[in-house]
């Protein structure tokens, strides 16, 4: 009951672009690189008798072979479906009996395996964690079962106009780059994946020197070390191959993709190639996007399309900045008949960002939010674990908590104008519209 009770409650504001400083005297975590190459981050918190572990392994879809799309996801997915000594049900029953959770999540840059347990169950939790990472069985029966389930979810996704739009957008922007492929693969690519592929992928990438382990909660450094000695002793370093990926390119003119569905609304995405996480303009881009469409009701897109014109409920924009260049996208849904107007307004706001400086108030409000909301990004064990994992993966340094404020404070109006000219493209965008094309009568 407790977990489901809020499912059908309506949230007023959907603000996916909102992300969030202040100075902390104590270091947020201790960092150590172990002998086997694994990076360990530890943040002891004694307020609650719970422990959260996030293991990030550089085994995401960016390292899977081109014709085996879905391999990284399937491999991660199969980890808790059986080991050399435990069945799928034995694993789920063991962790669920103590009210804990053990889950895997796919990703393009890295996959994660997460454990949450009460302190009293930490030994059992680490035992399971190491078993599923080090000794997965990859049995043929479980592989078939997961392939069927994934194919079913691929079919079900065709019911969701947002997912249809997002897949078409990714493919158009990224071409052959893995960021443009569906992480779960396709029905055809899944058929090409064999047990040997999965075992080889696991053998090749699930290595301690590819891994960041973040541990947050009621566990001391000594306790943690004894867990690692007991359960992760035999995890040995090995070289792993790096693939060289084709760089995605910007289009030279707008590309419009129209997908006919009998829907009440047109689901719209406008965007293009974006930036890498290590781009020095990342902070100027962050402030710029907050003003454009990342800042909820403080953003221009929301103000124009929702507040002034009543054309949409959810209006947002974001840059996904990862290891390789990600995308910029502005997204909204509006009744088919309003699609032209809403698209025109979104493009107008992108162009205004490129041609006119933002106001002093917009700049100071954006900085004030981005720096002032930093404490909210790290106010629970779960959030601290996710934050530390990203800080380590993208090499931001444990002093990022303090540096972030400096980086944001340094951004000027000129920086924003320059960043907008460089990273927003109103003449070479990809526009995806999923909806009723007759009613929408698109002019694009």
């Amino acid at each position, binding site marked *: *009951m*407790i*977990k489901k*009770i*809020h499912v*059908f*409650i*309506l*949230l*007023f*504001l959907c603000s996916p672009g909102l992300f*969030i400083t*202040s100075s902390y005297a104590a270091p947020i975590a201790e960092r150590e690189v172990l002998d086997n190459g694994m990076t360990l981050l530890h943040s002891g918190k004694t*307020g*609650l008798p*719970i422990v959260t572990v996030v293991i990030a392994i550089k085994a995401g879809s960016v390292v899977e072979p081109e014709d085996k799309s879905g391999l990284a996801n399937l491999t991660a997915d199969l980890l808790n479906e059986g080991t050399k000594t435990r069945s*799928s*049900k034995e694993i*789920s*029953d063991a962790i*669920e*009996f103590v*009210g804990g959770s053990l889950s895997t999540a796919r990703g393009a840059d890295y996959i994660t395996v997460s454990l949450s347990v009460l302190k009293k169950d930490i030994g059992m939790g680490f035992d399971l964690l190491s078993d599923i990472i080090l000794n997965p069985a990859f049995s043929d029966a479980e592989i078939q*079962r997961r392939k069927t389930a994934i194919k*079913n*979810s691929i*079919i*079900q996704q*065709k*019911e*969701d*106009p947002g997912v249809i739009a997002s897949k078409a957008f990714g493919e158009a922007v990224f071409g052959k780059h893995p960021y443009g492929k569906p992480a779960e693969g396709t029905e055809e690519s899944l058929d090409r994946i064999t047990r040997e592929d999965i075992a080889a992928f696991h053998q090749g990438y699930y290595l301690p020197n590819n891994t960041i382990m973040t541990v947050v909660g009621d566990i001391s450094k000594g306790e943690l070390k004894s867990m690692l000695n007991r359960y992760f002793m035999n995890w040995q370093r090995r070289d792993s191959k790096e693939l060289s990926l084709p760089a995605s390119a910007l289009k030279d003119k707008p590309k419009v993709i129209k997908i*006919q*569905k*009998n*829907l*009440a*609304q047109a689901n719209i995405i406008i965007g293009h190639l974006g930036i890498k996480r290590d781009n020095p303009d990342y902070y100027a881009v962050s402030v710029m996007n907050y003003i454009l469409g990342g800042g*909820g*009701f*403080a953003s221009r897109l929301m*103000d124009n399309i929702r*507040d002034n014109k*009543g*054309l*949409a*409920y*959810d209006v947002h924009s974001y840059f996904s900045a990862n290891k390789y260049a990600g995308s910029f996208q502005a997204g909204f*849904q509006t*009744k088919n008949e309003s699609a032209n107007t809403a698209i025109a307004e979104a493009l107008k706001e992108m162009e205004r960002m490129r041609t006119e400086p933002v106001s002093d108030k917009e700049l100071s*409000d954006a900085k*004030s*939010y981005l720096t*002032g*909301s930093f*404490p*909210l990004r790290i*106010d*629970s064990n*779960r959030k601290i674990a996710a934050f530390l994992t990203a800080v380590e993966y993208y090499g931001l340094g444990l002093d990022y908590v303090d540096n972030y404020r400096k980086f944001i404070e340094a951004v000027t109006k000129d920086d924003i104008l320059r960043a907008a000219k460089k990273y927003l493209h109103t003449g070479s965008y990809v526009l995806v519209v999923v909806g009723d094309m007759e009613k929408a009568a698109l002019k694009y």
Partner: protein
Amino acid sequence: MLFILLFLLFHTHAYALDVSEYTLKNGLKVLILEDHKAPTATFQIWYRVGSRDENTGKTGLSHLLEHMMFKGTKKHGPKTFSQAIQRAGGTDNAFTSKEYTGYFELLASDRIGLPIELEADRMRNLILTKEAVLSERDVVMEERRLHYEDDPQRLVYEGVVAMAFMNHPYRWPVIGWMSDLKGLEPDDLINHYQTWYAPNNAVIIVVGDVKKEEILSKITDAFGDIPAAPAIKTVKTEEAQQRGERRFFVKKEAELPFIVSAYKAPDIRHEDGFALDVLGSILSDGKSSRLYQSLVYEQQIALSAWAGYEGLYKDPFLFLTGATAAFGKNIEDVEKAINAEIEKFKKAPPSEREVQKAKNQIEASFIMGQDSIYMQAKMIGSFEMIGGWRLWEKYLEGIRKVSPEDVRRVTEKYLVSDTRTTGILIPLKDGNK
């Protein structure tokens, strides 16, 4: 010996909620829970009004008013509320349910004075212009298109609830019917606001790195002079006894068949609520649960299958089950498989271990929920709205006492076809135009 000692310690500490409760002279209730793990806090104000308090032809009023609450007052002009909170590094939002309408802010705890001042202002001083109401009505219609009209599974759920309740206002959706939204007028909103938005119909909940005496004094300064409103007379419609199964179909463009069944069930204040919650957990919590193991893992006839007791309501609500059929599988077979799993409980109680697992999951989720100040406030509010936040403690105690035989008994008593309402999605192929 060590185990027993730990167990006892665990028991005494797990359910003690250190909430301080105050009531101002104007009837405004204030609940404060100090939590000093991080320098942040949440301020929330919950009004005891939701879609259950609406009338035919005017559904969706509570939710539309929730949207309008961000449109400005005499003192703080239009578009300023969220901007002011965000400038302070905070986030804000709101939610509407069948029972309540809530507003919240999350921010660094040294800035908590700001939402206190802003929320006190908008409790009585909202400006509702015709132009703003009409524009926001359009926004809500877009919200309805997004979350219902173009989401076939949501349409089935909406229909099941509407059909399960023939009398009680639980029948209509929180967002309102599309045709009602088109007809809502500024005066409807003004009446709704003036009737329900008053200190004696609201509860403030603060969780985070605060000192309760300081917060209480700030709240008293900001809200203390707002006069109480006249007591509200509500008409109580009770749902009549359901005497036979109700079934209906939704035919719509979709890929996979889907089913939802709703059984009439008592609310959590009824002693059977605890066993129903444990039943829901055994059926549905996690991959080791019975529905996942049977329908998804063993038989592979469903992509997903779930169940859940919905007891956090003031009046009796529902126990729900549902599933999405796997590609090429019949929804009839899926329905039979779910019903077969339910029948098993009637023949033999679940094992001691399964019941213990459900209790452990509910207990662990209570402890893990304390990782988030927002979730703690949300839980306190959800229980407060239906009869007092202490129900949360009673709930946790009640769960602990559930026996396998209790689970068998409540299955036999409530999960019967005569009080079931079933909705089925029949996918149509997308017609090209």
